């Protein structure tokens, strides 16, 4: 049972877990997927949202222009496999980024050893497969 007390203009209610078991009757629904406040990386019209905080400083840094070109190219690429027609753009982005090692570091050790690369690649790949799994989940939820 919850109880309540008042202290001047302030009202305080204490609720137990049981009190909160029944669903809310408040006139508001919150659906996290419909949160239109922060559109995320891809805008509803399919374009890339360069303002997305998730990009950090990638689109706005010194290599913003090459990054945007490369990423846009990849995004709209119809080639099979996707992005294979964007090699030039990726190359110039790489070139630009290597000029600013402080801003675009290769992991902790700025080691261009092939081993290191593979290690990094694997880590990112692992993260991505995690994400893939979750995307599958969320797509399923969205569909239901």
């Amino acid at each position, binding site marked *: *049972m*919850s*109880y309540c007390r008042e202290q001047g203009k302030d*009202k*305080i*209610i*204490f*609720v*137990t*877990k049981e009190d*909160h078991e029944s669903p*809310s009757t*408040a*006139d*508001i629904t*919150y659906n996290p997927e419909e*949160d239109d*406040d922060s559109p*995320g*990386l*891809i805008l509803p019209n399919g374009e890339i949202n*360069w303002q997305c*905080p*998730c990009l*950090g*400083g*990638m*689109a*706005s840094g*010194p*290599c*913003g222009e090459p990054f945007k070109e*490369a*990423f846009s190219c990849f*995004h709209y690429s119809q080639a099979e496999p*996707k*992005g294979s027609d964007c*090699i030039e753009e*990726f190359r110039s*982005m*790489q070139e630009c*980024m*290597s*000029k600013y090692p*402080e*801003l675009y570091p*290769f*992991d902790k050790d700025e080691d*261009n050893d092939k081993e290191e*690369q593979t290690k990094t*690649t694997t880590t990112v*790949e692992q*993260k*991505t*497969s*995690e*994400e*893939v799994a979750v*995307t599958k989940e*969320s797509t399923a939820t969205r569909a239901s």
Partner: protein
Amino acid sequence: MFRVAGSVTASRLSAVCCRTVTAKQFQVHGASLHVLSSETSRKSRNGPAHHRIPPSWQSVRTMASAGDSQAKINYIFYGLAVLFGGGGIIYWWSRKYMRETSKDGNKTKKSTAAVPAESKEATEPVSEKPTSETTKSEAPPAELPPTETPAEAAAPDAESKKLLDAMPQSYPDYEVMPDIPGHAKYLLIGGGTASFAAFRAIRASDAKAQVLVVTEEEELPYMRPPLSKELWYSDEPKLVEKLKFKQWNGKERSVYYNPPSFYVEPKELAYQENGGVAVVKGRKVMKLDPQKQVAVLDNGWEIFYDKVLIATGGRPRNIPVFERASQEVKDRVTLFRGIKDFKRLDEVSRNASTIVVVGGGFLGSELTCALGKRSRDSSLKVIQMFPEPGNMGKVLPEYLSQWTTAKVRGEGATVKPETFVKRARFSDGKVILKLNTGEEISTDHVVVAVGLEPNTELAKESGLEVDDTYGGFRVNAELEARSDIWVAGDASSFYDIKLGRRRVEHHDHAVVSGRLAGENMTGARKPYWHQSMFWSDLGPDVGYEAIGIVDSSLPTVAVFAKATEKDTPKAVVEETGESLRSVTETEAIKDPSDPASATGVEPSASEKTESATDEEPAPDVEAAAKLVAEVETENRVAPTPKEDYGKGVIFYLRDDIIVGIVLWNLFNRMPIARKIIKEGKQHQDLAEVAKLFDLHADED
């Protein structure tokens, strides 16, 4: 290099969305971690290894894999990455080879030798590379590869500065180019958080934009929250010296938003093919001419602009007693705001025996907690005083303000509410403060944190309106003051479509409004829409996030999860002192709506306690004992009824509409809070609204 992008982006993304809280560490907040999404970072505060999937990767995945062949995409990505990573190496090694065998070979060898062991081999050749490339692309007339200047310092800024010095010889008309441009397409006045968010937004929309920042400070843009939070709780003094701190994931972060190599020298801004951001330090804009579209600096220099943002923030307020005091007293008073003040206080606190903090709001309370922590390992005594009856008195309803005050005391500080300084004098190396209570305190140093005076100095001369109610420059819902003049951050009194006109002095607001202004400067024409939030922590146990108008003078309705066995004895003692525990039990029994339970205090074996999972009991008992002793001597704690305000939500009402929400020790719920404010409906039963926050989620 998508791997480069990938590793950078992925790490950034994971940083954004995955957070853990350790009891030992101060609860680090999203905004300090990732500037542009304060709350996504705070989302997983309570879960270790809860990898909240970064939204962008989700979306990338969704777009990239229209149904199947996801694994295939993976391979492509990383194939490309390895290919270009490899290609990249080959590329710059070949350039290095070419350079070393060029006729400037001697100079190159000298510069290679000059690089101290510290700087990585990798960076040196890389930094040489742009010299030749950029010159080639920007100054076709240049015949020779430029001379390499000896890259002397290991510090990247010296390195890149030298590098930049190397280029100009080949820039056309470089000798007659002024140090500060005479024209800037985007001029940003002020070099703080709003300005940073603005230039990031400008360049995201207009990737070749040339942005000029003019700041009075001698610092590049940096973030403020760590100066009263993370930097004080760091275990690594060497990092703190460099104004760096370790994030929850072990990664180091600087208070500076970007390293010096990110910025372009103002003199070279016009030459940059892809634009850039240049910062003019130590210069003040005295006035703007909105019609001629020119800004005049304190040295008389004029900068013509196309679009200008005023992000001048504010200056810390002082109290008249100290303004009138002698120089010896003034020398021992810090008006806390920036890096300079942090460094000063950090140093002072190592040697002082007493420090007094004047001010009971966010900054004052945070500094008190920080100094209180320091006082545990030293003989430092920390005293906080303010005119309100409790800490955060202007923000939290009284009962919570009292509870908070007890918490601050628990951090090792002496808190004197309803107290202010009447006189201050210097005597025998100490500052003697005479208080309104009659007490006299002798202290080594005083920190003043009594609010901010928005900086509108250039308003009058520039024909810009100042808000006489809220202070700051008056702007519309799109943050525009006059044509092509925007104002963001602490100095901006803006029209909030939902909540009405206001001025907000919080970090996230600086980010949100700075970003909005930046977008509008590139033509977005968007009104202020995304509500900013703010947060504070009171030591390792309690933290809250808030959104909207959080003013303690408004009526409030709060819903707290009822205390269960979470009320460990330690928690009870910490709060108000042992003596009140018996009062608690009596009250609990007497409670008519809950006759059977004496739940306030008895631990129940079946349910897991939240506190058990994230606290270390032993050391805090000492603090609690200290607290009890203090309570007995001071007798300042109001006899708070023994309810545990462990977790809950507080609604602030104006005409029965929720205009502000505080999430007390509840995380991951800001989006719901934001939606409630956005809808602005009148709700009949707030207890039902509170259900949306799932107060009991972390239990059992």
